[in-house]
């Protein structure tokens, strides 16, 4: 579904991604793990069209999308829950969800909102509340809901467990599991390597802009290099 081929991304003179090649098949959960500054967010931002690659190709369902405007990419079916949530804190929860469906013109937005909230009952209870008053975990859920409102074929999640208490991390990962079961294709970026590898069909390890390892989730969990570098020995 998504093929990334030899991608180079720069910020000025700094190279953030160097020859990254990876793919995501329909229905898969693919995780990318790596330490701070490895280039994980850069990768997702580039897929979303928020950064332009200098070299390489990104193909989504066969057509090349590198350098395409972000709104077109959302319309094609890729949406992102960005790092740090970035919800609109001065708007209500409902308005945040409406903005998630911004690119849609069909008349099923309302029913989709209901469906999304069935999965996230906490969000339904707070629909009219200002989004800035939600707890960190609720804000993360809202960011995921908002991304789902565009009816993505591919969902990009950037560190959904960042800054959350362990029980909330479990809740978020359960939800990701459910979305997976519903058939949503997910590209997940995480620092919490343990969880990310457990849930993933396949995973990649990114180090300073290079893919250094790839494999299915279980195998990487037991890989000695991964254990040492990302799973605390």
């Amino acid at each position, binding site marked *: 579904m998504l093929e990334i081929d030899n991608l180079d991304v720069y910020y000025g003179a700094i190279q953030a991604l160097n020859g990254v090649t990876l793919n995501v098949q329909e229905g898969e959960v693919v995780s990318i793990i790596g330490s701070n500054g490895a280039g994980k967010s850069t990768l997702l931002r580039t897929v979303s069209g*928020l950064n332009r690659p200098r070299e390489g190709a990104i193909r989504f369902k066969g057509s090349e999308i590198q350098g395409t405007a972000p*709104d077109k990419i959302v319309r094609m079916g890729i949406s992102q829950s*960005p790092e740090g949530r*970035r919800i609109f804190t*001065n708007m209500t929860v409902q308005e945040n969800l*409406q*903005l998630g469906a*911004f*690119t849609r013109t069909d008349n099923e937005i309302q029913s989709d909102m209901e469906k999304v909230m069935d999965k996230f009952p906490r969000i339904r209870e707070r629909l009219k509340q200002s989004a800035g008053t939600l707890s960190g975990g609720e804000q993360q859920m809202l960011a995921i809901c908002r991304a789902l409102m565009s009816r993505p074929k591919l969902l990009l999640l950037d560190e959904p467990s960042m800054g959350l208490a362990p029980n909330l991390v479990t809740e978020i990962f359960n939800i990701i599991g459910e979305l997976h079961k519903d058939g949503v294709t997910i590209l997940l970026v995480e620092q919490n390597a343990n969880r990310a590898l457990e849930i993933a069909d396949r995973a990649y390890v990114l180090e300073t802009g290079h893919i250094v390892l790839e494999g299915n989730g279980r195998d990487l969990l037991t890989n000695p290099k991964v254990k040492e570098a990302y799973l605390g020995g």
Partner: protein
Amino acid sequence: MKFWGVRLLSFVLAFGFVYGLDVVTQTAFPNLYRLAVLAGLYVTLAVSLNLINGITGQFSIGHAAFYMIGAYAAGFVSQHMYASQPLGPVLWLVVMMAVGAVFAAIAGIVVGLPSLRLRGDYLAIVTLGFGEIMRIVVQNVDPLGGAYGLNVKPFGEPPKILWLVWLLAVLCIAVCRNLLKTSHGLPFIAVREDEVASAAMGVKTSSVKVTAFVIGSAFAGAAGALLAHSETFISPDTFKMDVSFIILTMVVLGGTGSITGSIMAAVALFAIPEWLRTMQVMIPGSSIVAGILAVGIMVSGFRWVQNNYHESVSKRIGAYLACVVGAAVAAVVLSFVLAFIPQLAQQRLDVAMLRMVIFSMVLIILMLLRPQGVFAHHEFSWDWLSKVLRARKGVTA
């Protein structure tokens, strides 16, 4: 059906209101007529700048440029073409508003485009520079009257257009309010809140920003067209940088993002200096110094209450009143004491002359005590008022 019914009714009501305002002003306060016109224009200017700065989160500080472009475009066309066409004055003025709006909107696109690449201070400098460049260009174009200025007297007599001015203000308010209250406005506020997140949601942030510039400058241009006709004379000096700053001050002081705030601040900031201008009272220098010191005391007191006094609302209001009384007493005592200094006591000044000093002091005080603006980002509504009152009661109970 219902939708358009409500629209039609509100339009009829608004029309009745502004027309009534015009008639009442003409008959009861004829010497306030011109000021009421200017106040209405400032409301349009402040509310339209609030769309760009407050609602969309850009930082434009050259709004007078669009005002000027609208004024000159409409003034020039009007002066040369009114005689050779069949429309009556009212319809002609409406057409001229459109002319002013279109020219200003084109300028809005020109200035809006850099806003795609520039942020904050940098955009501010571009908009300011644009305003000054346009002014200097006009100053040097002879068909536009150059530095001397342009007469705009297509009808001979200056037209009585208070109602049209306020109708424009109402229209501008309605457009902005609808943006804020309906889903059409969500992308604008989203761009203000977080540009990257908006882009990630599929909002075309660039066209949102340019749209804000276009709508905002079109309203300023229409206001300019009305100014040109009601004043019957415009010159580059009418649109100096301080006009831009006054408009910006109105937006910031009212509470960036709040339409209500912009309206209130526009009327107040326009009216205060004009009112002071009419005051022919001579005050001895000693009292002026005493007054300034007393204001300083009062503001310090207010700040202290704000920061250190966390009692119930009614007690806090009491504390504020105590500051006011204390400051008043201090003013009286100080002016007696300072009167013993002959150099101060003999120097008398007119309030009208002091008006810019008073004006700036009001601004400084408000920014010290309420940096988020009088209304912050709230809007006046009955809902909001009752919520505030209930909250007050809740605290005191």
